[in-house]
């Protein structure tokens, strides 16, 4: 048995846990998502029978490189087909991976909404430090990811704006959010 994509990610963009050790099947999922909403890295940990481990591994292989939307459409049948078939009494093992994926995507969206909310509130009620850096220029949001935001800047002191935004975001979200400028 050589499961692929097993383990954990150091700084995942999203994470989920399903099942429990009491009911005999449990799984964790860590995902890193790129700026096109694609699954760049995915890692699982599973407590369960060999079928559950194989199904978890298959799910991660299928999901890798897909957008989150596409990943949500992965079906049990696809997982079973990827494995070249599974005994019928083990079909339920493949459900856990799907559930973990759904929860991880929900976690990603929640984290992104959180970042977006804080960024919007900063831009709505511009703090004095940012007002100074912005001066007469403008700032437009291009893309929001839980761990980074892409912005377009015009007529501003870029370095100062980035520094102020990153500091404000860190203070409000409690996490490091990278600000990137698109030119």
């Amino acid at each position, binding site marked *: 048995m050589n499961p692929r994509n097993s383990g954990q990610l150091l700084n995942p963009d999203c994470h989920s846990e399903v099942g429990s050790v009491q009911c*005999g*099947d449990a799984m964790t999922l860590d995902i890193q998502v790129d700026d096109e909403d694609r699954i760049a890295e995915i890692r699982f*940990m599973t407590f369960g*029978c060999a079928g*559950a481990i194989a199904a978890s591994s298959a799910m991660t292989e299928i999901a890798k490189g897909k957008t989150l939307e596409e990943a949500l459409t992965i079906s049990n049948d696809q997982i079973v087909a990827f494995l070249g078939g599974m005994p019928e009494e083990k079909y339920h093992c493949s459900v856990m991976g799907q559930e973990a994926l759904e929860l991880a995507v929900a976690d990603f969206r929640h984290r992104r909404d959180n970042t977006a909310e804080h960024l919007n509130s900063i831009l709505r009620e511009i703090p004095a430090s940012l007002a100074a850096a912005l001066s007469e220029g403008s700032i437009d949001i291009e893309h929001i990811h839980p761990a980074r935001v892409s912005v377009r800047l015009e007529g501003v002191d870029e370095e100062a704006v980035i520094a102020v935004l990153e500091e404000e975001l860190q203070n409000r979200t409690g996490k490091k959010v990278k600000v990137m400028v698109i030119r």
Partner: protein
Amino acid sequence: MKVYLDNNATTRIAPEVLDAMLPFLTEKFGNPSSFHSFGSDLMEEIEAAREKVAALLGAHAGEIVFTSGGTESDNMALTCSASINPLKPGLVTSTIEHPAVLETAECIRSRGHPVGLSEVNHDGTLNMDSFISLITEQTGLVSIMMANNETGVIMPVEETARIAHERGALFHTDAVQAAGKIPIDVRSSGIDMLSISAHKLHGPKGAGALFIREGIDLPPFMLGGHQENGLRAGTYNTAGIIGLGVAASLAAEHLLEEKGRTGLLLGRLEAGILEKCPGAIIVSAGARRLPNTATVLFRGVESEAVMTLLDIEGICVSSGSACSTGEETSSYVLAAMGIGADDANTALRFSLSRYTTGREIDCVLEVLPPIINKLRKISPYANR
């Protein structure tokens, strides 16, 4: 290399047993109940087998009834006892008995008779306070297994038999796992009924016996012909009975030597597992156990995954749980001992036999630790 460490499930048939059985599956095919000598001569062989089974238990031949195995023996003992005395139809047994006892107990309960299940302690031994508190005036039978099939814990048969007798109840013990592994003497232990199964002691499947102490008059269990004094009708399973007889003789002959040898191998297995597998815990480590049985918790690693990977390497072990329906059902024995489902789902049982070799133990100690480590690496619970 095939490594068979699931001897509490079933055992290899001894070559001597097979040799003794073969004539009865070929030329000696007669019915022992027939008038003609071709058949009736076989009755002598049946009686010789009865002597051998009796000798293993310290009983008289006339006290042995042949059955189809441990399950039937347990069913017979419990069901028939419940109707001996209408004033005492009650049964007291324990929560960790074999399903053959527990399901029969449930059936007796469903007929409106009082049934009590004694609790066990954390180490798998019988909780004597619970046991004693359940015995009432209505208790006609106490049934406590001689040794548990999962943990190997040896139960206090003599003490429970004495308590049963003091309260006017009969005492039955399911000795299916104990027979051939520890000495049995029905007389000195005060046992009234005792179940054994041939295939757990290197005999054939489909044969077993119930010892019923002389003087106990059970009503018929199987209706039909006059076999076994009308208690258990049905044509004699000649080959099976002959096999059981030889298996019982061999078990008696090897008993003391094997107890030591198997015990040493088991000790080596347990010590090796504890040394090489982090998170391993031997269940009932401090209790008196059969010399052949060890259940081990591999915390953080689900047992079926381990079994599957061991199976690929040719190693046969078992677990109390099975992930087949999505609703994992973990061992009721471990649950009764207060072991949570989280740990019970990591339990593997290793059970040795007369044919287990040191090489097999070495093979397990070589193959198992990397499997445990590999699964721990991908387990979300390995370090919790």
